[in-house]
């Protein structure tokens, strides 16, 4: 095995990682467990309450905006009344029953919630399945760049006798944890990962223009992607909000809640659906329909999902995170996206000037849309995206009117003056900016948050612009920098299989070998 061969030659390891033995000698590594102090716990509780308040504000604003669009007669893909209903159940619903679905006390839970005001004993009321994910259940696996080993980082919650909980982070190598060779490798790992992350942090600081030492990096907190562990719940929420704001309607209603101690994300469960990686989900039919340009009920939602994946730059959009409905009685199907935790990556600038995401974008939906160059986003979604884009642009222009040196011609000035008050107040623009700031927030460092959000906001608007121009998400070969779009191998295999599917001949006409078999059977 690979692992064994790397133990046999310790000198080789040192050469790969570039670390001298003396440098890591003082790291005492067995299984590292970090516990939070009472002050940290108190801070966390206050912070959770703040985060929840922020999400409620966002939800309110989004609902208002959707309602306004509906009142103004614009096309809306998201039914705001339905969304409000979902939100009230997800936020305040009474738990009818629950089960742990991911093992242990910290994993994902499946809750069945009923409407908050249901009378007791009313057995007819249907309950809504909701998935509740906790930060505590988050487990990250990390590849050691020096040895290629897999390590596991786990957040645990320990309940004290008085009912309060404190957080514990355990960090251990997957597999056997014995022997001096293992210990040495783990020491190398600690050192090498630190160096690896420091290099990345320096690049981020350079691009976003803040002092590198200012970023409070928890170097044990990085997983395979350059995102801190524990930030995924917020991203999950923001992506669902962006989905609603842009009228794409591909992500089930998602929100954040807290029980006072821990932060949870709650997402409405979708019934009668299968992940695309499930062979029973008829992924092949969808692929075939895209390749051969045949109609398929899920095509519209496919482009919508691809557009969302592009907008939020999902780095985890593999087939297991895309759901396909089982066809209903009329044969209608839709695609849904889940697990947006690893989205909205940070960016760095290359020496050539190109701005690239720190992690490659991975999206099964974009990879499928790529197969048909004529596939475009439907008009309804296009119109909503256009509305959002114009509202943001107009507000920014309107704001720049006050500046002395603004070079805006009279015609534009007239148009800007006649804008509605909601656009002038910057409702949409501020909401979008605040959502991004929520995702990119660096705790306790408002200047850095602002620096990152400003750049990310303009990059985001650039992506929206591209979608409006082409009606499609960015494409792997042309629009992404080399290596910054990771094609999903298993999907590529299936696409190849679909393209090679031979044309089905009528055996009776051609005298193909099938005839003989038929004869023998008789």
């Amino acid at each position, binding site marked *: 095995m690979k692992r064994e061969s790397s133990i046999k030659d310790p000198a080789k390891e040192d050469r790969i990682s570039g670390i001298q033995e003396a440098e890591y000698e003082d790291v005492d590594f067995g299984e590292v467990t970090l516990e939070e102090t009472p002050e940290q716990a108190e801070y966390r509780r206050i912070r959770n309450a703040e985060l929840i308040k922020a999400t409620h504000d966002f939800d309110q604003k989004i609902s208002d905006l959707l309602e306004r669009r509906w009142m103004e007669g614009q096309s809306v893909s998201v039914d705001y009344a339905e969304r409000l209903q979902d939100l009230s159940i997800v936020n305040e619903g009474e738990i009818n029953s629950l*089960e742990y*679905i991911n093992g242990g006390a910290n994993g994902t839970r499946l809750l069945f919630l009923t409407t908050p005001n249901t009378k007791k004993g009313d057995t007819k009321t249907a309950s809504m399945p909701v998935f509740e994910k906790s930060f505590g259940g988050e487990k990250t696996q990390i590849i050691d760049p020096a040895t290629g080993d897999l390590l596991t980082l786990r957040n645990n919650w320990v309940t004290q006798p008085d009912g309060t909980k404190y957080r514990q982070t355990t960090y251990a190598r997957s597999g056997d944890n014995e022997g001096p060779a293992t210990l040495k490798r783990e020491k190398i790992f600690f050192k090498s990962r630190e160096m690896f992350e420091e290099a990345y942090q320096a690049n981020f600081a350079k691009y976003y223009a803040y002092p590198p030492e200012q970023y409070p990096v928890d170097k044990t907190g990085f997983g395979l992607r350059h995102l801190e562990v524990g930030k995924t719940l917020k991203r999950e929420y923001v992506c669902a909000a962006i989905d609603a704001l842009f009228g794409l309607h591909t992500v089930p209603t998602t929100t954040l809640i807290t029980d006072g101690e821990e932060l949870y994300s709650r997402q409405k469960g979708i019934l009668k659906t299968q992940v695309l990686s499930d062979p029973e989900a008829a992924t092949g039919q969808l692929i075939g329909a895209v390749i051969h340009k045949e109609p398929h009920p899920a095509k519209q939602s496919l482009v919508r999902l691809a557009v969302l994946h592009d907008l939020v730059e999902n780095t985890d959009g593999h087939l297991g995170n895309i759901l396909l409905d089982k066809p209903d009685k009329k044969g209608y199907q839709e695609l849904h996206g889940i697990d947006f935790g690893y989205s909205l990556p940070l960016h760095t600038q290359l020496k050539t000037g190109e701005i690239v995401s720190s992690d490659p974008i991975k999206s099964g939906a974009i990879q499928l849309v790529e197969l048909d160059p004529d596939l475009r986003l439907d008009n309804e979604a296009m119109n909503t995206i256009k509305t959002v884009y114009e509202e943001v642009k107009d507000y920014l222009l309107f704001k720049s009117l006050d500046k002395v040196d603004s070079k805006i011609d009279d015609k534009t000035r007239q148009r800007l003056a006649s804008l509605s008050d909601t656009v002038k107040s910057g409702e949409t623009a501020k909401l979008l900016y605040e959502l991004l700031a929520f995702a990119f927030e660096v705790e306790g460092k408002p200047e850095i948050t602002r620096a990152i959000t400003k750049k990310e906001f303009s990059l985001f608007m650039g992506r929206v612009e591209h979608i409006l121009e082409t009606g499609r998400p960015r494409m792997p070969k042309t629009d992404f920098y080399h290596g910054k779009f990771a094609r999903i191998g298993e999907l590529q*295999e299936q696409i190849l299989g679909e393209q090679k599917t031979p044309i089905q001949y009528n055996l009776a006409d051609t005298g193909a070998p099938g005839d003989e078999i038929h004869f023998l059977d008789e």
Partner: protein
Amino acid sequence: MANRTLIYSELDDNLREASAHTITLAEDGSVDLSQMPKRFQESWTRHGLSSDTNQLVFPKDGDAFLNTLLQRANAYFRIKEVE
């Protein structure tokens, strides 16, 4: 690690677990999928699965395959490790 066991569950229409299939590591280091539904056996041995580092892993890869399965577990693809 010796004798790792994973459990895969199919879902009913209410998203509750309806069945349990075990996936184990065989002695030769490959993954034993004989308890899994046929469609998964065929698909995974033929097409493989994309791992997080975007390489295709197959049941014969053993531990790497199990880790990939665990990484891809979510609310709609229930797979968990028995400890």
